């Protein structure tokens, strides 16, 4: 029944592993002389972006094009949205033009869910407000499995992997989607943030909570730094950037406390010198560039699995 990808929580472990395995097979496409597969020929994917984005939009565009789909990019700026057109009318207009899937990014949490009720094609959430960003979680999980278990791993989850997510959890859709997906895959997640940046009712999440980054470092296989989202902050959540960096920033000193095999992740865009020091971001342990490359293959896998086969009748 579900032909959309709205929340990482909708995925069963089996489905999540299937996406990772499919992505692992598709990764080889970028090493071939012809980086294109004919699979989605004649299908149209619309990128409907109401918020600024570079990597997610280009990543979805590259993924769709590598599968031979046609891509229509729509950004709210310079469109009829500026004249007051509603999300529903915009979506129906795009669907009337023959879109098979809509990839949506929207500042309002829940917009993709509403959209899924209006259109007949697939809806893929590319980030909605402070709610979710499921493909980011999938590419993070893929990167973790590739780096910690090896690129030939198939069928496996992330059982027992200790993931520490640090920073602005309150405003982070990446953190929400990652918590849902990583726990589905068997990883153990610890959230580290100043008390002011912990979400309400975080105690009900399937995670451990800590306010002391240094205490968590030596136990972590993966450390994921989140961007301090100043554009979403309507109040003062911490005294100063310097104070935040001193307590929650990842610098070389802190990186040295990580186990030998541990990796450093960041969903981007980074605030170098705030949550992550420049030399940590550029170190060999950092997977930040690999995450971008994996983003294309994981999104290819999602598009293939949602659009590549027959439409479900039921």
């Amino acid at each position, binding site marked *: 029944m579900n032909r959309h990808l709205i929340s990482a929580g909708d995925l069963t472990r089996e489905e999540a592993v299937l*996406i990772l395995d499919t992505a692992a097979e598709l990764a080889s496409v970028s090493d071939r002389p012809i980086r294109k597969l004919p699979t989605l020929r004649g299908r149209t994917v619309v990128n409907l972006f109401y918020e600024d984005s570079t990597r997610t939009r280009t990543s979805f565009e590259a993924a769709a094009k590598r599968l031979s789909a046609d891509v229509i990019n729509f950004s709210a700026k310079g469109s009829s949205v500026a004249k007051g057109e509603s999300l529903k009318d915009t979506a129906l207009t795009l669907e009337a033009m023959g879109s098979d899937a809509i990839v949506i990014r929207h500042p309002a949490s829940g917009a993709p869910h509403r959209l899924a009720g209006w259109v007949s094609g697939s809806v893929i959430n590319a980030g909605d407000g402070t709610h979710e960003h499921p493909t980011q979680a999938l590419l993070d999980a893929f990167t973790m499995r590739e780096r910690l278990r090896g690129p030939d791993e198939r069928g496996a989850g992330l059982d027992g992997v200790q993931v520490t997510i640090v920073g602005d959890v309150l405003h982070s859709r990446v953190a929400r989607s990652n918590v849902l997906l990583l726990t589905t895959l068997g990883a153990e997640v610890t959230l580290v943030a100043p008390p002011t940046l912990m979400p309400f009712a975080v105690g009900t999440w399937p995670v451990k909570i800590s306010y002391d980054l240094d205490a968590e470092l030596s136990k972590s296989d993966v450390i994921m730094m989140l961007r301090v989202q100043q554009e979403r902050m309507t109040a003062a959540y911490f005294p100063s950037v310097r104070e935040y960096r001193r307590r929650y920033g990842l610098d070389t000193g802190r990186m040295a406390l990580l186990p030998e095999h541990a990796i450093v992740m960041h969903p981007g865009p980074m605030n170098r010198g705030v949550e992550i020091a420049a030399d940590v971001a550029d170190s060999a342990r950092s997977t930040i560039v690999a995450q971008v490359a994996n983003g294309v293959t994981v999104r290819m896998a999602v598009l293939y699995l949602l659009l590549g086969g027959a439409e479900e009748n*039921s």
Partner: protein
Amino acid sequence: MCAMKPVPGDSPETGGQDSAARGSQTRDFNPPHWKDQGWKAVLTPEEIRRALSRVAHEVLERNHGGEDVVLLGIPTRGVPLAGRLAGRIAEFEGEPVAHGSLDVTMYRDDLRLRPARALQRTEIPPDGIDGKTVVLVDDVLYSGRTIRAALEALNDLGRPRSVQLAVLVDRGHRELPIRADYVGKNLPTAHREVVRVLLAETDGEDSVLLGDRIQPDNAEGADNAAGANNADDAAQETPEGNAR
């Protein structure tokens, strides 16, 4: 997300009887009990062994040795067959021959008829296929649609000097102008019949089995009405639309 459910890629079926996807019911099948379930063995393990040895010799004869030959198995069961042929050729010639696998799922022409399928391994030998003689290896040749997809996939991977086709069983009923260069056994069949290749690597034993598709009136546990089955078959029949 039901739409993401894959059709299992490794079910021991070959030759157009994917009951889950197409609604047509086939006999129960759980090796090693096939003998009691109406299946007939048409090739014994010894016959399979001899057929593969002969095919290996033919590949060598036709290409004047194993140099520049790349054996690419089509998943699922073409892959172990390619491995066995490579083993035979190495044994006969004293030189190893390159072999790998080629998944054709993304190039199939029946993708939209069934839910998205899980992908299988593609492993191209490190020297690539440019300028090489590629021998595609599959278990059963039926409609020829899998081979068409494989030719298209090869096209995106490089430019082989020539492409040849080796199959363990050719059961006829081609729908495209494709023929095999090397055939283990020609097996005349009817459309309603089902050919299954079992290999030790994937199924625990070597055998080629022939069975009838169960008629709807005695199909046990058939989910679909008989009428729906027939309609499905007429509309969607692609003899090689089996799960790979």
